[in-house]
């Protein structure tokens, strides 16, 4: 059971980290209520309209296309690190992988997902 003591300590330290932080801040922070204090984002862009407003669905396709390259980079890094060990076989596999991803981008391009209409 002793190996779990570390885990328990870790959980307790994690909890303490949050609780102490919020607690101390609650005790010492200055209390002033004004208009800016009550805004949704105290030091951000001013809020416009209601949360139920409609926005363009095309943001979504851009996010998806972003994911293509995001995932690509995740796999490129470990491959680049062990490039020498993987050798030619690794290079070929990576080209197949990137080919499939590029196919996805090509498709998105052809379907007009990259144009803002």
């Amino acid at each position: 059971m002793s190996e779990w003591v570390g885990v328990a300590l870790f959980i307790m330290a994690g909890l303490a980290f949050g609780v102490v932080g919020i607690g101390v801040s609650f005790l010492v922070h200055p209390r002033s209520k004004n208009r800016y204090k009550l805004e949704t984002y105290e030091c951000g862009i001013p809020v416009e309209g209601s949360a139920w407003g409609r926005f363009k669905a095309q943001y979504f396709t851009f996010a998806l296309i972003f994911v293509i390259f995001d995932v690509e980079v995740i796999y490129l890094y470990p491959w680049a690190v062990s490039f020498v060990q993987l050798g030619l076989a690794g290079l070929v596999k990576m080209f197949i992988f990137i080919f499939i991803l590029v196919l996805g981008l090509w498709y998105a391009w052809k379907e007009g997902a990259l144009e803002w209409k």
Partner: protein
Amino acid sequence: MNIDFSLITTEIALAILGLAIFTLGLIIPRSARKGLGNIALLGLIIVLGIAVYSWPNQGETLGGMYIVDHFSSFFKIVGLVAAILVVFGFRRYVAANVGNYLEYYSTIVFATLGMIVMISAGDFITLYLGLELMTISFIVLVAFRSFDVKSLEAGIKYLLLAGMSSAVLLYGLSLVYGATGTILFAEVAQSIIDGSGGLLLIIGLVMLIAGLGFKVSAAPFHMWSPDVYEGAPTSVTAFLATGSKAASFAILIRVFVGSLTGIQEHWVMLVAVLAALSMLIGNLIAIPQTNIKRMLAYSSVAQAGYIMVGIVAASQSGVKGVMFYSFIYVFATMGAFTVVAAVYNKIKSDEIADYAGLAQRAPLAATVLLVCMLSMAGIPLLAGFVGKFYLFMAIVDGYMWLVLLGLIMSMVSVYYYLRVVLVMFRDDPVDPTPLKMETSVTITLLIALGVTVFLGIYPGPLSEIANTAAQSFFTP
């Protein structure tokens, strides 16, 4: 870790086919994309040829993560045959109701790839990879008629419920891994023999049954199937009911009969209850249906119940029964759905009442629907009877109650199948003009008819093949 490429030629060929269809579709102009259907058909036939040719190849690769034996080869052939029939028999339907050939045909090929990867899985990761490739492809396919509210509803339902079932399955897999310390099926089996187990393993096992039960639409995890079957394009419904189901049964057998045999006493009764529930719910709720796709959906829940009987047996004869039944079920279901799609093309309706007088308007379609339904009901001299005979013979000692329930429920199913037949043959058509079927539909119908009748009269060779394949499964 070396890869033995000779064992995975089928998979590589299928992946190349899917990418080739996609690339070609991007290069050629939009108006020429219609021809992609022919390329998909030709390619799938070649891949089927490769799969049949590599039947003697057996072995494991990727350190046991990928198993190729007669059992997996058999189910791969079943899945590929289903894909070929879907691409061939529904060409007109796809052209008239679905469109988007590039996306449609490449997604069909990738769904098939997911199936055959899952069938050959030797560990939980490969299982999940194949399962998700198949499921995500099907989510796309189900929602393909994006202008049709019903299709979108079906897509959303399938997305949410498939996501949930995947979560349950993954949790179950993680618990089995936690209890046994390995993800390889072979090592899980060894670890159970060595005495690992306990409550954790059993909870994991129950979750596995729930997750895979969703895929084969066994009651009480069948709730999604009527809505999804009704809303999806008929071609996709047919593929979902045959390929997806057969592949999920293959992996169900691989996991339960193959690697969890050591704790058989914990799951056999559970599967038996699920089988009984599926037969009861599927057959009884099918009776009041007025939409033929919904009726076939409930009937497919009942069919899942019959097939699960073979898993209850957990023996060579049970596995053989499942294999035989899966094979004939593909043809019977494809025949029925091809008729539904072909009739929908002409009269734009899936209501059973609108099938009135179909025997006069399209005699071949009505005959094929009759034969396929009677086969599913298990009438002698048709393949379904032989299949049910093999399944129920496997459990006749020990589970007599399940056999009796199966027989009674088969009788019940005759009622609702014959109700459709009655409408088709007895009632006079509102509009007596003959419905002319396309050549591809006619050929598909003749194949379905021929196989169903032939295997009913002469089941010997297929039964022999299934038997040897099941044997290779039990003596590794």
